[in-house]
């Protein structure tokens, strides 16, 4: 497939938008339509390529240790870094999401009249950044694209954003850069230590690496690994964004132009979760589940991650409820929804560590992961520990729990995809209204149902998908996360269900404050004299694919879940 291309398929996929960006950027400023349609055309070509890629992975999911579309070329020999790309089920799903949302964001951004060629070029550049992260199998490549994604977004907010755009853009940039710093340092550390930046190589060598004489760069290995893990984790948590690293998000989302918000919520947030799956979890299987103690409290980092997830779910929902700005409400809903992703990741990390411990025959680690208390004597004697652990946590049980983790992680990744669809849809609608009414203040709306029936129907539909109504896409992911996590974290699950309750409240609040109530004469007048409030045909075309996918995915999740499942099974195939 795709053998006719002069370069490797993934390379072409990643570079095509950049080439397109250069072309669009070179267009004269006054040829607005040309720039718009060229950008759209290029992104549609990319979409076709991503669909091809997706179905190819669906038909032939790569085995563990293998990668689909794998390609390696020399790049930075000095750094031991090479251009190494490839995909599996997890990245294929995200790549399809990227390919899908970019043209829609571009289509919506036709509404921008100012510096058109530049804004279109930025969108294409952003697409390169996102796709690059998802295909990267080399840490340097990963990091480069991670940063490339940041720049266009910054400018989209800074130059085309709302009233408070400078503050929002700078906050976004600094926040993410601060995270990237840790990521960069940790990457370099690992890369230098294992003498390769190749991700598969790193994944193989680093978890078992013990340093020279138990030390790395003169420091205790355990400490170094712990801080390296923090470097990765914080960068990814900021991106997701998990509580309490989320405060950049409402500002950035609210101020970004509609197309920017769509991609920000739809794809960029997933980079963080993807980072966990590709790097943060498999690089540190031991560190995640290692039992630590604070005063007399026993915990491990996975517990903390799960706690952050629940806090995100509950507090994100409450914060969304308290908003009077529609876009902020939708923005906080991302914190709420991505919390379920993090919860699923926590369960997956726990299982990954457990499997790793089992495979390494590290029974004291396994005991910690399973919550089994070992006496000092058992700690010191390997056979005693093994005897106790295999009795209390036999392999049959591990296999059973692994299946739960498979369910939870399927849910988490599926939730990533679904949140991409629904949040993009919600931001599209929020932006569509704002673009016409020039206000997002929910207190000023109400009674719009009769003025904007089509918008109302779309809002209702998308809101319900976002709320997780069974039969639409959002539900399946949440259900799987709840089900798969129930055994590992029953209390967290019950708390997150309380958050789910509040999800209902804020979604209904949004609908009610916009649509319900007596027909709003102020807006009737506005609609007649100044600007039609009803959603335009172009916007309907842009949201239609999302709506259709929300329905299809809800009724028949298999088309997407099969690919995700192949990636998940591969991920949890034994550490």
């Amino acid at each position, binding site marked *: 497939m795709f053998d006719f291309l002069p370069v490797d398929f993934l390379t072409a996929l990643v570079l095509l938008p950049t080439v397109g960006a250069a072309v669009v950027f070179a267009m004269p400023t006054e040829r607005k339509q040309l720039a718009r349609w060229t950008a759209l055309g290029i992104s549609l070509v990319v979409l076709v390529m991503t669909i091809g890629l997706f179905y190819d992975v669906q038909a032939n999911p790569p085995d563990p240790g293998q990668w689909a579309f794998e390609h390696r070329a020399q790049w930075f020999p000095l750094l031991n870094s090479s251009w190494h790309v490839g995909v599996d089920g997890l990245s294929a799903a995200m790549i399809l999401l990227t390919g899908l949302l970019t043209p829609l964001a571009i289509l919506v951004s036709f509404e921008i009249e100012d510096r058109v060629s530049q804004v279109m070029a930025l969108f294409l550049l952003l697409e390169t950044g996102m796709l690059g992260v998802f295909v990267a199998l080399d840490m340097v490549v990963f990091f480069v694209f991670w940063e490339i994604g940041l720049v266009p977004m910054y400018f989209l907010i800074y130059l085309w954003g709302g009233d408070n755009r400078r503050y929002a853009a700078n906050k976004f940039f600094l926040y993410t850069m601060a995270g990237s710093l840790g990521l960069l340092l940790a990457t370099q550390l690992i890369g230098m230590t294992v003498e390769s930046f190749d991700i598969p190589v790193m994944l193989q060598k680093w978890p078992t690496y013990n340093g020279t004489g138990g030390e790395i760069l003169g420091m205790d290995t355990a400490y170094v690994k712990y801080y390296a893990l923090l470097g990765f984790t914080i960068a990814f948590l900021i991106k997701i964004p998990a509580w309490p690293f989320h405060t950049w998000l409402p500002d950035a989302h609210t101020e970004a132009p509609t197309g920017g918000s769509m991609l920000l919520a739809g794809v960029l947030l997933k980079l963080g979760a993807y980072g966990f799956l590709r790097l943060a979890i498999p690089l540190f299987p031991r560190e995640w589940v290692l039992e630590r103690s604070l005063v007399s409290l026993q915990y491990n980092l996975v517990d903390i991650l799960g706690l952050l997830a629940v806090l995100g779910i509950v507090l994100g929902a409450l914060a969304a409820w308290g908003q009077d700005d529609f876009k902020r409400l939708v923005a906080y809903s991302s914190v709420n929804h991505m919390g379920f992703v993090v919860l699923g990741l926590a369960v997956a990390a726990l299982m990954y560590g457990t499997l790793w411990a089992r495979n390494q025959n590290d029974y004291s680690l396994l005991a910690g992961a399973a919550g089994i208390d070992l006496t000092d004597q058992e700690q010191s004697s390997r056979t005693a520990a093994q005897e106790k652990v295999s009795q209390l946590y036999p392999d049959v049980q591990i296999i059973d729990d692994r299946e739960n983790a498979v369910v939870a992680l399927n849910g988490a990744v599926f939730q990533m995809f679904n949140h991409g669809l629904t949040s993009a849809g919600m931001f599209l609608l929020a932006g569509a209204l704002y673009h016409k009414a020039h206000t997002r203040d929910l207190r000023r709306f109400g009674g719009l149902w009769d003025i904007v029936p089509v918008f109302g129907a779309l809002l209702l539909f998308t809101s319900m998908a976002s709320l997780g109504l069974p039969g639409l896409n959002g539900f399946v992911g949440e259900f799987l996360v709840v089900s798969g996590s129930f055994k590992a974290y029953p209390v967290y699950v019950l708390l997150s*269900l309380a958050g789910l309750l509040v999800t209902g409240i804020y979604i209904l609040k949004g609908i009610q404050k916009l*649509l319900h109530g007596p*027909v709003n004469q102020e807006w009737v007048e506005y609609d007649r004299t100044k600007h039609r409030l009803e959603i335009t045909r172009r916007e309907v075309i842009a949201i239609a694919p999302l709506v259709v996918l929300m329905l299809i995915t809800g009724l028949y999740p298999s088309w997407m879940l099969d690919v995700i499942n192949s990636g998940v099974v591969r991920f949890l195939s034994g550490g």
Partner: protein
Amino acid sequence: MDINWFDADYLPWLILFFPLLSFGIIVLFTAHSRILSQVVAMTGVCVAWLLSMIEFIKVVWASDAELGKEVFGSTVDWMTLGVSTFKMGVLVDPLTAYMLLMVPLACLAIFVYSLGYMRGDPHNSRFFGYISLFAGAMLTLVLADNLLMLFIGWEVMGLCSYLLIGFWSHKKSAYQAGVKAFMTTRVGDVLMLAGVGYLFLETRTLSFRDILYDEAVLEKLVNTPSVLFGGSAAALIGVLLVMGTIGKSSQFPLHAWLPDAMEGPTPVSAMIHAATMVSAGVYMVVRMFPLLSAGADFHNGDFSTPMIIMGLVGGFTALFAAVLAVGQNDIKRILAYSTISQLGYMVAALGVGAWVAAAFHLVNHAFFKALLFMCSGVVIHSMEHGEQHAAEHGHDPAPHAEPDGLVMDYVAPPNDVLRMGGLFRKLPITAITMAIGGLSLAGFPLITAGFWSKDEIISEAWHGTTEGYPLALFVLLVLATAALLTAFYTARMWFLTFWGKPRTAAAEHAGEGSQVSWRNLWARLRRRPAKATDPGEQLTALQMEIPLLVLAFLAIFAGFIGVHTDFPLLGDLDNPLHEFLSGTLIEHPPVIDFDWLPVLVSVALALGGLAVGFVLYGIRPLAKAQVDPTERALGPGIWQALQNRFYIDMLIRRYVLRPAEHVARKIVIEDIDKDTIDGVLESVAEGFIWLGEAFKRFNTVVIDGVGDGIPRAIGDFGSWFRQVQTGRIQQYLLVVTLALLIIGALFLIQVG
């Protein structure tokens, strides 16, 4: 693939598909046309009903030999997780077949009635779209072969109830009631979701057949310790599922939404109270009963935790709601509380293991409650005309202005039974059919369906009591008391509405302009001039009354299929229902011995309650400006408390919702996000700025002192860099793009 869609295995797909298709067509294509939307909706529900009848006949036909062992159904692969595949499918076993008798028929009746009732509403198409979806969701729920598909139907119905209760969304009270319904039931729903999730985790399947008909699976669930709260996994799952029913079927303490649900158009109330929504809640626990009772030998007094909860909650709700129903003046609110109370009967019945009786009462209740609501709709409709007339002519205006939003003790004038009276002569058909429905609700002996099913519940509770089970005694006592109250408030409602003389001008002119009478129709058929001349009104009358007659028939005759075999005379009907439904369970529920005592108690209670009502309101009907004797008897304090629903709604609002909103607005957004998190970040930022200033000072003082060469270089670099950093996007972009292209080109050269 070659599928014969009319095969009993595949037909269920079509049954649920057609109403959903109607919804799709109306939303996408016919929303602009009322007539087309009505036609589409009616076609959908008619086809669903016809196919259900065919399916039912096929099932009864085929299942002669091994009832319930062989079931009909088919599945499709829905998703793959790990190595196991989750299948979605449909299932028709005796229980589903019995529901198929009720649901499509009740829906059809309500649809026909809606044609008349919603005539003239500007959002007519939208209405028919929503109720089609509602019917489709209920059919999905009933036909589902697994708990996940059931839950899909369950939640979609939640959405429909929200949309339809808040249908007149320009009214604050309407959308508030919609939100209240959605959120209150959602409390139960999320807990149920946890139960479904946990069940899936433990069994790796949600198929009814795989779980409920497999003793090994049930036993495993009973023997697995629960992850929370102690007890077994089966108990925790069961309790969580029961929570779902408590929300959906409006049981205490999640009952508050149902009385407000009447803010929707009356056909919606009929839909919610009878054919769909609340019935779904009870259906789910009936369906899941083998799991809920797993591990408990309840025939010998060993009740499982979910059963105890059902017994206590259901029993308490039955009595509690019956008490509240006595103290209401809004005709629909009386009916709403009666629904809550009757659902309590069913839930309590399951609590003591009266499985067949619960299902029996579920279906009978649906028939007579749909009937009662539709009758009340006719009454309200004609009272609205009367109010309009009275207002136009200036006499007896409505007592107070409509409040802004939901107010607990506000009664809309057309709904107020105290403002009615003497409507019998205006609405004879309605009065008679409503009497039939009311008698069925009250459990009037022998001739009503309600009697047989209620009697069976009470008999089972009696049986348990004689065996000495405390739970059965509790259930018996509360249900018996509730039965007395039920008969009383039913009589009160009927006599206040139809009996005596009109108490207001509105009642006197009720129905004017929309005279609903068969005499007129008869006149039209004989081509005589009718009293009301508008043919549209005549059609409306027809559309609203035919369903009443059909349901009145069922409110009487639906009960004879379940008469105890030892009952004199009628017992010869052979109690086909018990035999038929029993096939649904592995262990056939035993028929308890016939006992005269509970039957006589039931009869005495029903007749006693009706008699008290008749004495108070029938013999001497309430006159104009007279105080309601019940109000007088109870005294103002208790009456007020009843009218305000024991202040529960108010307490919830004051002590749960408001503090929660305060937490959201003040604590989460202001204190945590703005002040704490952003506060810390800003201090860090300020720290860096201070550091920068310090470096600058260091620069000027120390480095300047050392030599001018370096600073000048830095300065030059700075001014050059400032030029680069113009904030002009072109330059940034140019640099980034060039860099990327160079990288790409280098790469291509290396590859090539």
